[in-house]
């Protein structure tokens, strides 16, 4: 681990909502080329953690540091979500948040927004540069759709897509922002085994081909154990364990907190 380049470094992140401590000094690292997973029972604070990292919430305490490869280290605390995305950290949402009245292609094109520059006046004049940029946006977006296997749906409205496809579209949209770190919030939720298997392949492909590090929240243990290199476990806002999939499987604390609860239910 030591010689690998750390992309994301979170130190002692704490998030309070009034008297409720949703995340309690959680530390976490995601390295280059890694697929890390954040697991834990419902309400453990995983999504809150994501929201802190991506700028939707400003954390009460702690440090969120992003180390891009070419650029200097940036502290993400209190940065607006769009700035965080510009830094190269994209995300998907647990409850799908697509632009439902836009086509599938347009959804991905929105992701290109922060990497393109035509302003109001240039858009009105619509010169050669703007037209070329527009075409570039369309082509890149289409290629991303091909990558996630949604090219045939390009002109559909995103609200008409099946559930699994909507999840993949969210990934494509996030990738359009050219991130080096991708946060996936329960990408397999509500998917059938077939779709989950496809998602498994897709995530591995993104990690291997695009060299994007991935941090995912997931409840599907099979998927998590299959693809992740490093797993963090949270319960009641605290990190209770971390390690390789095998270490996590054998960790009694995790079994008690997580798997134990499942047998109870």
């Amino acid at each position, binding site marked *: 681990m030591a010689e690998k380049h750390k992309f994301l470094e979170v130190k002692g992140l704490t998030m309070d909502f009034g008297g409720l401590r949703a995340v309690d000094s959680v530390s976490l690292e995601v390295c280059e080329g890694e697929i890390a997973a954040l697991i834990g029972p419902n309400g453990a604070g995983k999504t809150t953690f994501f929201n802190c990292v*991506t700028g*939707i919430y400003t954390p009460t305490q702690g440090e969120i540091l992003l180390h891009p490869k070419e650029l200097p280290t940036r502290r993400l605390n209190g940065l*607006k*979500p*769009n700035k965080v*995305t*510009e830094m190269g950290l*994209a*995300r998907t*949402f647990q409850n799908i*948040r*697509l*632009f*439902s*009245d*836009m*086509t599938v*292609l*347009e959804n991905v*094109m*929105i*992701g290109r*927004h*922060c*990497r*393109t520059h*035509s*302003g*109001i006046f240039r*858009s*009105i004049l*619509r010169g050669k540069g*703007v037209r070329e*940029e*527009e*075409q570039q*946006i*369309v*082509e890149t977006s*289409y290629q991303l759709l*091909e990558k996630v296997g949604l*090219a045939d749906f*390009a002109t*559909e*409205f995103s609200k*008409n897509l099946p559930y699994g496809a909507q999840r993949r579209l969210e990934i494509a*949209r*996030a990738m*359009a*922002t050219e991130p080096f770190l991708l946060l996936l919030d329960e990408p397999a939720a509500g998917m059938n085994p077939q779709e989950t298997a496809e998602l498994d392949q897709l995530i591995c492909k993104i990690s291997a081909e695009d060299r994007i590090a991935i941090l995912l929240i997931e409840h599907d243990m099979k998927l998590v154990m299959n693809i992740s290199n490093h797993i963090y476990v949270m319960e009641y806002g605290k990190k209770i364990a971390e390690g390789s999939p095998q270490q996590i499987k054998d960790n009694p604390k995790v079994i008690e907190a997580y798997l134990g609860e499942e047998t109870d239910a």
Partner: protein
Amino acid sequence: MTDMLKEFKQSILISLWFVFLTFPLMVVRVNTTESLVEWRWMNMVWVALGSFILSYLWRYMLARQQARKKVADSGLEKQSKVTLLLEDATFRYRAMAVLLVLALIFPLAFDTYQSTIMISALIYVVLGLGLNITVGLAGLLDLGYVAFFAVGAYSYALLNHHFDLGFWTVLPLGGILGCLFGIILGFPILRLRGDYLAIVTLGFGMIVKIVLENWSDFSFGPSGIAQIDRPGLFGIDMDLAGSTIYIYYIMIAMVVFTILVTMRLRNSRIGRAWIALREDEIACVAMGIDMARTKLSAYALGAFWAGMVGVLFAAKTTFINPASFTFMESAIILSIVVLGGMGSILGVILGAFILILLPEYMRAFSEYRMLAFGAAMVLMMIFRPQGIISNIRQKYEYKGLQKETDNG
């Protein structure tokens, strides 16, 4: 068939119920002077027939609406013939050319009165297209839009009164001032959404009107400003008819300009950001779109058109006072956008013509104007919530598109 029979039965029941309800009012009449009771059986027949037809029509429309919704939900929605026709580029260009020619010969074929009505309709077209950016595209409900119109009108009236500045000098200035006020309004309400946003914009509209009414030193109060110069044309003196025609042509040019610019904006990176903001604010921000900037640009660019057309309004009427900028105006402009179809440029244009021209040509029924207006809005929202013409989607060409590979 059984469905139809059921609807039929229901309608008969409703009509009987109405007959029963209106019986004492419509049928029985007591003549007190002669102590006689009159039975007006014909009225009963009319009530029965009327309520039956209306109820049946209502049910039929609702059923159709439901069926269409079901199809739309299943994703197998077939585009209507109108939409298909409108999406055909060659047809669109031809139609535009024909319309433009018609618009250009209009004042020569009709009298000054017709031209004046047409000018006010065109003013509302521009207003509608401007508000369409804020409400239709960016989804920011604005109930005080007329304030920007007032800003434009007063900026010309005052600059003309005090400094003798001409129409053409102030025209862009009015737009820019509108823009500025849009940004001034935009800043404090960046965080607001939905109902709260609507209330604040409503308040803003009120504030502007009240300031204009009461700050007499600045705006001459309710008595307004008179004798504003008409637009000049290289110092040529024009009579009323001539200058009306001249303003009409300016207005046509302005509408064409507005359509061109708003169309390009909508189909640009900025326009997509607006639509994304309307669809989902959080996702929009998470995709790297600067919310503050996008919202402010939507307000500013929406207000720009109101400011600019306000200048023309002042020049056309040569007299303005705060009474022209009431909440009712904001409501009408908003109705134009909603009735026409949110985000749809063609829809907004049609909406403006319908809402402004119909009342003009139906002067005979002017007492029922608000009634018809309200009824039309209610029916529209029930049966066609997307507006007269829903937004025409932009087509993109890319490699891998089967139909048009040669463009790739």
